Every structure is written in C-alpha cells, then in structure tokens.
C-alpha cells in the first residue's frame, strides 16, 4: 500500500507534530536514507529534546524497519518521513488532523475524518485522547493519519483501516487508563486539588510513560507495518483489456493474510490471521505425504526432485485447491528460500520471473512443460474427494537420487508404513532440510576448489547431490 501511516501528537509545549511515521519503501534503499537523514532535521532545538514530540525505541537506533520477503517491500518507521516531500505533506496533515479536521460530534475522541486533495494528499485521520493525569485537561491529544495519493483506494479501504486504527488507539488508551489508575492510587484527586496548580508538570510526558509500555513504539511499528502490508492485499486492481471486465472470483475465502510470509511471533495482529494457516493440527495434515497423495506414487519423486533442484514448478488450479499443496511444497525448501515461492500469483508476469515454485489460477496462461518447467495441473474432476492432477515433465530423473531426496522418500514411506506419524514426518523434513542448508552454507564459505573437495568429503556430499548444491548455493548467501 503506497501510504504513510503516522502517529501525531499535540504537544503541550510545541504544538502539533508527527512523531512516528511508517511508510513502505520499494525501490529506495535503506542505506541511502540513513545517509541522507542528517540534513533533514531542521526542527527547533526545544522540540528535539522534548520527550513527547519524539519517540525512543529503548535502544540506540532511532529507526526501525521490517521487510516483507515476498514482495520485497520494506516498512520503515522514523520520526520524519524518509523523503523530504513526503515529510512536508505529513507535517501539514498532522497539523490539520489535530487542529482543524476534528470530528465535532466525538469531540476529538475516536472519530474518523477524511480530508485532503490531490496536491496535499488524501488523508484519513483518527483523533483520540490518551489520558494523562499530569497534563492540562487530564488528557493528551493524539491522532493516527493515513496519507495516500490515491483517493479512491483510501476511501475503499476505509472500513479496513478504520477497524484496525481503532484497535491501535483503543490499545493505547487502555494502557494509559491503567497508568492513570495506578497513579490515582498514589496521588488522589483531593491531594491534587489541595496542592493547587503545582501538579501541572512543565515537561510533557511521552507515550512510553503514559502507557507504561516500554516497547510501545516497536508495537506501533508492527501494527502500522501490518496495516500497510495487509492494506495492499485488501484490495487488488485488475487491468483488463478488451471487453468490459467481469469481476474475477474472489481468490479465496481467506483473509488477505494468507500470503504473508512473516514471523508471526512478533506481530500479534498478524498472528491472529496466520493461526488459521499455521496451527499445528493442520500442519500435521499438510506433510509431504499430502503431495504424494495428490500426485501419486510414480510422480512423487519427480516433484520432489524438481522442487529440490530448482526446476520451475507451475501449479495450476483453483486457488483453494492448490493452496494446501503449495504449503507442502514450501517444506521442501529452507526458510530463506521461501521467497522463491509464490502462492496464487495474480499476473502472468510472475511466471516468467524469478519464482521457482508458483501457483496460478486456471484463467492464467502458462508455458508448456519442458525440461526446465514442471507442470502440475489440478483437473476439475474429483473421485472420492481426491484431487486428480496431471504431472508433466519431459525431463528424466537421474539414476541415483540425491541423498536428501532418498531420505525424504524413506521418511514418507515410513509414515505410510505407520512407523511414525505425520507430525514426526514434518519434523524430520525440517531437520533434513536444515542439515543440507547448513552444508550448503558451509560449502559456500570455502573459496578454492581443493578446499571444497575436502569439505565435501567431510560432509559426505556425493556427486549425485551436486544439483541441489548448485541450486541452493546461489540463493543462500
């Protein structure tokens, strides 16, 4: 989503400003930004030192970023937006969101206001109050703004944005409420009244103090970055040529998060969505055995070999049918290579690109099978609820399978023999993949050919493993 999400604050001393901006970067490199950041800081001296107008992450670094490996987008959070022209727009939007465009019915608490124009950007602003016993009026005014150039995109995603911005603001307010309750215990209303105006502290307090949450800005970053990421998937536009477009069928009933490749443990809001995908019970079901069941006994080694050695695999079929299959294929590659997998690509261009394992829906044209393209077509027939697929690959399997593949086939066989369960199979798969990943990384470090040969001997790498090594080593730097 090409947008900037910013947390703005009306500082008691310095007036309105944006204190925390998260934005999506695609082509700009972070290194360039960090170098160019210094000359941008033209704030007043006083504002620089003000704790309420600035944010701290608790550590030394003052910027935070996360990367979506799949789309290559980076989400950067800084005090001032990274690009000067954007920073100016954010600054103006912050002033307007706090000082004029306030929903009069809600009196600045929790309302949503849309304003802006094409030159100054379109803005969805959500203003809310955070209680603070030490400030005038016992609260501080904050707002979250979403700034976009695309008016219709913003208006169309408003329900989604509103829902999640509301969640963020409620979280902050709840934190502040807890702090307030704790403070009131120590310092009652009466004491305050009797002590007169002295309780008005001259220095405004930061959001960290208000919520009592040390990592509040890191949390905000994860929320904002998620909104930016999920917002882009909330709505996709299709370019159609020729006849009037009919609406393409919704790719699946799943929320947009199905394609997220995020470390869910740190991002609470994503976790909620990913639970449906990654919960262990389903995991058990989606093991390599699923692939074998779908493609059949004969074709299973082919699929395994192609996935492991980097032959392009194109899976074509209805997204809800291919999804599980793709999740299983994912298990055949180490995590760092998951960006080579594209589930439910929306566009034909994706096929010709770098992706090695890709699934598309039926309406997208795909190249015919060749020695470097394996095609798996999900046919529309169902027998006993099983998928019927056709696997086409004109290439030939080597006589001696790579060691990793042999072990995987053995493990799958063991499950069929009921020697162990699918859960164990999943763990075993993971262990084997990790083992070979480390071998490849180790080999990568070796410079000369003679050292490599020695290493291979030590690691037990045979000539038949070479295709895997070749493929993986280019992607595991």
């Amino acid at each position, binding site marked *: 989503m090409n947008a900037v999400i910013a947390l703005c604050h*009306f*500082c*008691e*001393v*310095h*007036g*309105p400003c944006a204190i925390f901006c998260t934005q999506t970067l695609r082509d700009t490199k972070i290194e360039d930004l960090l170098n160019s950041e210094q000359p941008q800081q033209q704030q007043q001296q006083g504002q620089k030192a003000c704790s309420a107008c600035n944010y701290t992450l608790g550590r030394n670094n003052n910027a935070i970023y996360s990367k979506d490996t799949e789309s290559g987008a980076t989400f950067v959070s800084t005090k001032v937006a990274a690009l000067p022209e954007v920073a100016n727009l954010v600054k*103006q939007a912050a*002033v*307007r969101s*706090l*000082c*004029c465009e*306030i929903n009069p019915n809600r009196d*600045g608490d929790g309302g949503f206001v849309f*304003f802006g*124009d*094409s*030159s*100054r950007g379109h803005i969805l602003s959500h203003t809310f109050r955070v209680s603070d016993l030490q*400030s*005038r*009026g*016992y*609260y501080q*005014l904050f707002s979250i703004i979403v700034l976009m150039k695309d*008016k*219709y995109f913003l208006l169309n995603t408003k329900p989604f944005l509103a829902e999640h911005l509301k969640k963020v603001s409620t979280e902050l307010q709840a934190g502040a409420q807890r702090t307030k309750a704790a403070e009131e215990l120590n310092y009652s209303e009466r004491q305050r009244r009797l002590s007169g*105006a002295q309780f008005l502290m001259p220095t405004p307090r930061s959001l960290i103090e208000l919520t009592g949450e040390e990592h509040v800005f890191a949390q905000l970053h994860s929320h904002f970055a998620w909104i930016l990421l999920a917002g882009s998937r909330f709505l996709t536009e299709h370019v159609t040529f020729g006849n009037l477009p009919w609406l393409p069928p919704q790719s699946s009933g799943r929320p947009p998060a199905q394609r997220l490749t995020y470390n869910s443990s740190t991002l609470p809001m994503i976790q909620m969505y990913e639970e449906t995908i990654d919960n262990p019970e389903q995991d058990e079901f989606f093991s390599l055995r699923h692939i074998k069941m779908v493609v059949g006994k004969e074709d299973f080694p082919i699929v395994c070999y192609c996935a492991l050695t980097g032959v392009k695999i194109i899976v074509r079929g209805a997204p809800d049918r291919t999804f599980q299959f793709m999740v299983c294929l994912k298990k055949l590659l180490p995590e760092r290579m998951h960006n080579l997998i594209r589930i439910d690509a929306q566009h034909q261009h994706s096929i010709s690109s770098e992706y090695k394992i890709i699934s598309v829906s039926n309406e997208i044209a795909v190249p015919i099978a060749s020695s470097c393209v394996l095609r798996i077509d999900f046919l529309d027939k169902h027998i006993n609820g099983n998928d019927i697929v056709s696997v086409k690959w004109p290439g030939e399997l080597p006589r001696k399978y790579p060691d990793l593949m042999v072990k995987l086939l053995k493990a799958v066989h063991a499950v069929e023999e009921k020697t162990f369960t699918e859960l164990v199979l999943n763990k075993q798969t993971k262990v084997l993949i990790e083992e070979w990943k480390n071998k490849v990384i180790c080999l990568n470090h070796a410079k000369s050919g003679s050292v490599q040969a020695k290493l291979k001997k030590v690691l037990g790498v045979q000539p038949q493993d070479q295709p895997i090594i070749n493929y993986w080593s280019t992607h595991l730097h």
Partner: protein
Amino acid sequence: MSYEHEDYPEDPFPKDFGYGAYDQDGLDLEANASNNSETKPRILLMGLRRSGKSSIQKVVFHKMSPNETVFLESTSKIVKDDINNSSFVQFQIWDFPGQIDFIKPPFDSDMIFRGCGALVFVIDAKDDYIEALRKFKDTVIEAYKVNPHIKFEVFIHKVDGISDDSKMESQRDIHQRSSDDLSEAGLDQIHLSFHLTSIYDHSIFEAFSKVVQKLIPQLPTLENLLNIFIPNSGIEKAFLFDVVSKIYIATDSSPVDMQAYELCCDMIDMVIDLSSIYSSEETAFDSGSSSLIKLNNNTILYMREVNKFLALVCILREENFNRQGVIDYNFICFRDAISEVFELRLKRQKQLQNPDQDDDELADDRGLTMGGRLNHDNDAAAVSRAP
C-alpha cells in the same frame, strides 16, 4: 463512480482554517451561515501558550468560575465562539492555540486577519514576556499588512497577586518595548492599547468592554444618549450592560471608576441569581426586571431592563431619587431611542442584503429620527424638572 479529477479546488492551506472553505458543493445553508459570520466582526485571542486565552473566553462569555479554569485543557484547534446575544454585541471570538505559529505559511494569514475587528494579544505578566513580545511584533506586522483597520489590544494578564508598582512597571516596560519594536519596523502609526487584566476580579470584563465598544459603530450615538439622559435625571454614572457577559457596551463620557463598575457588575449578578431562584433560567431577565439597591453611603444603584439582552445600571445620590417618576420617564424615552437605533440597524442590514433600496432615504430617516427623539427627551426632562 467517475474517476475524473473531482478534487477540491486548490486553495491555499487552510483557507478558512475550518470547514467553511470546503463545503463548496452547493450546501446553501452552510454558505449562508458563513456569509453571516463574515459580516460579524471578529475578535482574535492570541498569545503564547498558557497565557490564559481560553480562560478569558470561558470566564467572560461562558460564566465559568475563575477557579475552574485551572482544569481547562490546552486548546488544540481554533475555537470559534459566536457571541450574538444582543443586537449590538454581535461578534465572533476566535481562540487560537498558542503553540502554533499562524502567521507563517502554510496558514493563510489573509483568511485569519481579513474581516477581523480586534486582535487581543494576551501576555502572561508572571512569565518572562520577551518571547511573547517577539511573537506579538511578528503578529502585528503581519496583521497590519493584511488589514490596517485591526485594533490591537494587549492584555497584560494574570496581574492578580502582583503589587501595583510592579504592575505599572511591567506595563510601562511592555509598552516601551513593543512601541520600539514597531517603530523599528517602520509602523509608528499603529496604535496599541494596553490593559492590565485578571480573571479573578472585574478587570477582564472592563478590558473586554473597551475592546468590544470599539467594534460597535453606534457607540457615539449611544454615548450621546447617555450623556443627555444622565444630567437630566440627576444620575452620576450610568452603564449600558450586556447582561449575559457583563460587558458594558456604552457609558457616559465621565471617567469610569473601577469600583463603580464592579458594583454594577455585582448588582447584575445578584439580580439574575435571585430571580432565577423563583423563575426558570429563561425568564430570569425580562421586561419587568428592575432593581433598586440603597447603599449606606447615600448612594443608590438602580437597574432597569432595556431590552432582552441589555440593562441600564445607574448610580445616583439618594437625594436625587426623590423624583423617581422623572427618572423612569426619562428612562422610557432612552429605551425607545435605543430600540430605534436598533431598528435602524436592522433596516440597514436588510438593505445590505437587498442593495436595490435607496441609501439616501435611509440615511435621512436616521438623522431625523435621532434628532426628534433626542429633542423630545430634552423637553420631557426640562418639563418635569421645572419647579
């Protein structure tokens, strides 16, 4: 949905600094309202943060108790307050957040200062006022550039608890510095008025009265009426009050004694409070309202209702009150004269709305009416005073 460019017109940010500028889609109702507000003079409350702008506005126009102002939140947006309780006192108060510099872009100072009647700059007397004066200078220069007719009023505020000497000293110092600043900028012709104010006594009401009076075009007429009324009725001092805000919108030309003003303020408070006990809030002040208070120094306070929003409070010696009938008769003449000024104003407003009507006719009409009434007033007084 058409995807053509149908954005707002590209106005300089933020035009009216409010919603007015953006309802361009034929919202007639809104457009009318903003038209109306444009004809109303505007009083701007500016100054550094925490100098007491919102407190002044709340205490004077919303009857907030001064002690409660401690709990006021900081103002984050321009608060526009319509004061239109009487036909004379009609204006808008804009309370600005002190943290924001409104005279610099992206704010449109043209929109802020155009149509503005008075700029009240509040300076905290207990604080170091150097920074305030710097901001004041910038504001005055910018405002004068846009609108040379603006009246500049400086409230040296929070002077309660400061000794009289240091009050005077800081007023002199502020006066000196700001005049120097302006003459440096080549703007000697700007006239600044200074007031020492505090919300804990009546000084803020008095200062605001003077600000408001300058915005009433009929002030000379009203003062004339009072000047004629007073000597003919044996009254020492009379104030024409706006009942709700306790601002006096006119008084006779004799000097205003602060204590006399305070007495009259308190009297209005007392009358309103007492009559609200026995009637509803709305009918606490109506055409029957009048009050008479005898003080122990042979002075009498006499209050009469003039119209729904105005009251006349007079201070007179007890011995002059033995002819109450004369005073009452004169008062009725005075009241009629006021209502005629009022009608004329209404006519004029209507005429402004339909500019086809003949201007001269009205002007003549006004002169005649005023003259006739005043003569009549004089006669009546003369007759009744004859032995």
